[in-house]
């Protein structure tokens, strides 16, 4: 039986190998390359997407678990040309170096700020665990705070 779900609001159904992680469906079947492969074991967070609004590591979410799910990827975050405030903050603070992890960092941050709209440094330390190999953490911290501020005044 087909598994039905939505990605960035568009309905999709899946008939293939249910063991396959969502990551590979996104990248190889849905053509959404913004979600990155980093480790395959849920350690690095490069593949972070939203599953029913929560940040999950899509390399570790099997297709079998997705019936009825609503998935948002980095490609679905902006509204048309209007970037999400977290994306804006990432540009304003000039966060990306290589950029490979940043889609995952941004998706993790968007979900984090929903629960923690005014985060302290400790909140950030505990809530953001994605790996950045370039070491942009100093600017990520600033961008999270800037995004939080912008979202509160928006």
């Amino acid at each position, binding site marked *: 039986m087909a598994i039905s779900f939505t990605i960035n609001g568009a309905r999709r159904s899946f008939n293939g190998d249910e063991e396959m992680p969502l990551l590979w469906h996104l990248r190889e079947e849905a053509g959404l390359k913004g979600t*990155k492969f980093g480790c395959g074991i849920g350690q690095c967070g490069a593949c972070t997407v939203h599953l029913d609004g929560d940040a999950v590591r899509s390399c570790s979410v099997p297709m079998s678990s997705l019936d009825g799910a609503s998935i948002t990827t980095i490609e679905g*975050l902006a509204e048309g040309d209007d970037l999400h405030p977290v994306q804006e903050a990432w540009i304003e603070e000039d966060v990306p170096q290589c950029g490979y992890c940043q889609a995952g960092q941004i998706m993790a941050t968007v979900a984090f700020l929903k629960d923690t709209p005014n985060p302290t440094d400790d909140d950030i330390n505990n809530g953001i665990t994605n790996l950045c190999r370039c070491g942009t953490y100093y600017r990520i911290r600033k961008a999270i705070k800037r995004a939080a501020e912008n979202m509160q005044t928006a």
Partner: protein
Amino acid sequence: MTNLSRRSFLKTSTAAATLTIALSNTPHLIAQATQGGHVTPCLRVDESGNITVCVPIPDMGQGMITTAAQMIAEELSVNLDDVNVELMPFIGHTNDQGRAEFGRFYQGAGGSGSTARIWYEMRRTAAYAKTLLLETAARQWRVPRASLEARNGEIIETYGTRKASYAAFVSDANGKAHEIFTNGVETKPVSKFRVIGKDQRNVEARKIVTGDPIFGLDADVPDMLHAVIKRCPYLNGTMVSYDDTAAKAVPGVRGTMAISRSSSDGAQRTIAAGVAVIADSLWQAKKAAELLDIQWDGSISVDDSSTTIHSKCIAQTKDGSSVRTAVQTGDIDAAFEQATNTIDVTYDHPTWAHTCLEPHSCIAHVDNDKVEIWVSHQFMDSAINAAAGALNISADNVKANFYRMGTGFGRKAEGDFVIEACIIAKEFDAPIKVTWSREDEMEQDYPNHMGAYRVRAATDEQGKLSAWHIRTALDTGNSTIARLFPSDNAPNVLAEGARIPNNISRGAWRGPSHNTGAWVIQSALSEAAYSAGLDPLDFMTALYNDAGTLKSPTWPYHDVDYRRHSILLRKAAKEAGYGKEMPDGWGQGIAVHHTFVSACAHVVDLEMIGDNDYRVHKVTSAIDCGLAVNPLGIRAQVESGIMDGLCAAKYGKLVFEAGVPITNNFDTYQKMRIDEAPPIVNIHIMDFGDTEPRGTGEVSLPPIIPALTNAIFAASGKRIRSLPISENL
């Protein structure tokens, strides 16, 4: 026009689908509408008139696409907010041996030299493009060229009403574009810079934050098949036999293929032995590869365990039975006899993995004696030559498409991931994409060296360094660390090194040699200072003030004036309040080091957390990277090097057991996250009046490790002489 420049132009041209090639030297006299094309390799205009600035050097996060775009924008008078920026294709040539060589531009990322290597040619080429556009406009409008100026992508009649986009003149101007005669083209003096020297954000930031498919692993081509390779886990091992029955039963599997290790003699690995599964989809190939039943022969490296290699290194530092002398000056024995104070200490560190966050991949499509590849790679020439070599064809027959890298650190300078794709693609009528897993990336790394070091240092009654004896025992034969300051400078020196052979194939890791050499040397100098009753800052400032200049023989490398090291130390110390009173359990550490020809000093402020852990609260840095093209990007690189160094020092440890790397993902190879990143990083970019850039990408990493361990000593009294710190504090 030489053959070389014609070929360069043709290669560039063919990559632009919209290009109208005009090979005549006679310009078109009437060309009002945009037909698109290149005006020199650095400017491309499409049929709609959109302007694209093309940069020659691949970006792996070091920011070259932005820095090079600034150089072009400066001379071409375009606003980077209004234009596209993209990586230009390879525009070099093929030499008599059939190998690709760089042409007008260096097209590789390594040695922190990219900015310096293109500094003159990039700006001249952009200035020439502007000259061509101005001349073309003058002809078309029948006005003197002096009455026109170029501004923000437009040609403007200074005292008239006419103005038009560069696009209006491109198809006319590009008639001459193949003659890239940049000699005599004037570039702006430093005093006129408007773009260079200003903060410029990453020009690809919007693409990155919206998830555009700009990385090598994102590349797809129509009708391609996927390959996943199970590679031999044993260092230098070979494949004996394999059973692919179960793998072939997976739907979508097209076949399997054995790949032999090369070279076959146990020397540095070119590619690993393995078995490839080729399938319609990546998931099918991944799944099937797990079902392969492979017999490996790992007997060659069964004695290669990290602990064994480490013991051999330590033993060499003690008995020195197989050392070779790298530097010998003065009379080391007499100097130690006459010394007022001496130290005799041993340092050691394990192997570090690259852990490029984007695992390697390459697509190859072989068509008879030609191949096209799609890959993210640090060096365009190396990638092309890897493909040519794998297929035994001329580099002329390789078409290469390059992408942004999800970090490189030296690993993406290797050829293995290109070679494998070409070897497999040769056997199939379809393009083949080989995708690596994280485990592949770590098991088949070309990691940093492992080593142990004995340092004896002597100071005289004035507290000055009077003798320096360094003995390195590394699993490479490299003598770079032995030769580093103060081996080039102290009055009595013995620098010697031993090679500890094993089956690990090592490669360049950000700041090669310097990355651990700085830790050893700066730690030892700090220890020598304390032994003489001096603060390390005072001791080292005096040492570098007396040290003169290190001559660098090859362009684009400059001489290193060691007095600048003193200035960097004092600047970092002043800004950090070095020496101030701190609470119990807090400490500051300072260090400086030049990597290639740029130098950086750091002060680390940290707090001990119990006896065995610490938090870095602040890093204060001063960097000399020559003329600063993009201060915002330079700060990004300094921040990056700081994090990379703090992380490698604390956790970096690639472990081999009986020839097998057993730390092969982020569950066993720990990396720092945001919670351990210093929340305050203050960076000071020094201006010594240089009119040329020196380089940045690797420079801040080496000195952060001794600044950290010196801070741990100040805070706790514990001297870290073995890495990783997490296991030795």
